[in-house]
């Protein structure tokens, strides 16, 4: 079984985000880490391949500056190889372009039984790329999966809904987007980290993939500060502060 996982390398979410003053797009310079929401997909893929008994997990990613730190994390978890699309013309690309590029990148890795992605990235959170990739590749898809199983060549997914969840079956090959928490991502072992350094990462450009007309029909025209919400009264708990809450709830007439 061959599972391809789409992973995004993002600026550390613990650091405050910054916009590029000229393009108004998110700054993605310097070190990028594996988006935590993609670690679930990598783990899911590794478990599915292990359950199938043979096969491998490979990765596709797109990053502006040849950055591989995040990819190495996923390789250290156990993925076998990766294709990295690194192309300055793709900086600030919209979701549709990203989906076209990643779909083309998967072809570099050979036929996949399953393509897994997170439901949305933790930095841009457009949340459309997996389903767009499925359409580009002409595949069925199941988004927002909270459990994923493969049995007898069929995919079985519990899919998150607003009211609960749906059981969905799907033919393979297919694209699945997984929610955070679908599995517990493993920590890379020391051995995994060492071996990841020599695993193949192929660098390609959009042109190498045959994706032409790299442009997108949206433009940021301005960025403004949101109206600030004033902080109110902050008090240290002295053992009686619950009374303050009761008074406040009383004032608001909710009790």
């Amino acid at each position, binding site marked *: 079984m061959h599972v391809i996982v789409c992973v995004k390398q993002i600026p550390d979410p613990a650091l405050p*985000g910054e916009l590029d003053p000229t393009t108004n797009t998110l700054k993605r310079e310097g070190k990028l880490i594996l988006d935590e929401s993609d670690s679930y997909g990598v783990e899911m893929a590794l478990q599915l391949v292990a359950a199938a008994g043979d096969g491998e997990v490979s990765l596709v990613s797109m990053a502006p500056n040849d950055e591989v730190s995040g990819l190495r994390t996923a390789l250290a978890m156990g993925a076998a190889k990766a294709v990295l699309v690194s192309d300055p013309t793709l900086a600030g690309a919209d*979701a*549709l372009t990203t989906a076209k590029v990643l779909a083309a990148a998967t072809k570099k890795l050979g036929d996949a039984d399953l393509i897994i992605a997170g*439901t949305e990235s933790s930095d841009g*959170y*457009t*949340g*459309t790329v*997996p*389903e*767009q990739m*499925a*359409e*580009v590749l*002409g*595949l*069925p*898809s*199941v*988004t*927002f999966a*909270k459990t994923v199983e493969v049995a007898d060549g069929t995919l079985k997914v519990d899919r*998150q*809904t*607003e*009211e*609960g969840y*749906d*059981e*969905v*079956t*799907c*033919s393979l090959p297919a694209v699945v987007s997984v*929610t*955070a928490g679908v599995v517990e991502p493993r920590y890379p072992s020391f051995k995994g980290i060492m071996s990841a350094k020599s695993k193949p990462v192929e660098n390609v450009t959009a042109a190498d993939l045959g994706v032409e007309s790299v442009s997108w*029909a*949206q*433009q940021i*025209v*301005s*960025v*403004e*500060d*949101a109206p600030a*919400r004033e*902080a109110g*009264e*902050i*008090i*240290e*708990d002295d053992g009686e*502060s*619950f*009374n303050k*809450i009761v008074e*406040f*709830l009383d004032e*608001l007439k*909710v*009790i």
Partner: protein
Amino acid sequence: MGIDNIWVFAQAADGAPTTGTLELLTKARSLGSNVSAFIAGDGTAEASALGDHGAAKVYATGDLGGVLPGVAVSSAMKTVIDGGDTPDLIMFPQSYEGRDVMSRLSVKLDRTVLTNSTEVSVDGDSVTVQTPIFGGAKLVNSTFTGEVPHLAAFRPKSFAAEAGAGAAGEVVSAPVPDLGSTGGATVTAVHVEETSGPKLDEAAVVVAGGRGIGEAEKFEMVENLAKLLKGAPGASRAIVDAGWVPYSYQVGQTGKVVKPTVYIAAGISGATQHMVGMKGAKNIIAINKDQEAPIFGIADLGIVGDVHKVLPQLIAALESR
């Protein structure tokens, strides 16, 4: 020219359009446009409410037979567009199905998408949407620069839903064409997670717990307080990911957007991902032992203290009233 033909992807539950759908129809109507709804199903039960919120026409796909709406509805939309009715703008709720339908359609039409928006404005032929980033600290205004239809998704509660447009929408059949290899996913069973009390995104009071609650068993405090206040319990992503509570409790970017009268954040530090889902609350009370927690920056009343002390005291005080 101008923007005079807007579609809204309509969602419904038990024969009634969702609030998010009615919000988008109301907004579309306010832009002075011809408005159509596009719905999965036969549309008859919903046509009156859809019409009264602005949809003169209701495109209905008929029963999807378990096929997921993303691929089915987008294909039906493409067929109508190919048939000559090309909208200038299609508005989608930022929901599971809304995102899927929009994503598929964007590839079919080769159109860009703008998501997570909270406002839309029209100036001549130009459509601009506004999207909050960095947890709502900044607002990004983006315009579509390509061909119509423009595709945009809007977060829940971005607009007020108002009836009063009048007659029921005219139901027009928009069948799903053969989906070929893309139609391979089918729903075989539907599970509804029953909850007692008001729904999280409609409750006047929301009591939400985060990592500071310490352990799964202690979430009971949050549920008890919510019950006493006739509200709904909610949660941060951290404890949903940790498996303490179901995903349906999650408030934030990837969960529910809530705008209650009172939001009580217990042991929640206020990550960007959480704040974007609750900063629209009219009043915010935060209890956290870290006085540097970002949540205090937007709280009307902040208690720097231990939730394991303050919550039980608060619960006891309310019980004795």
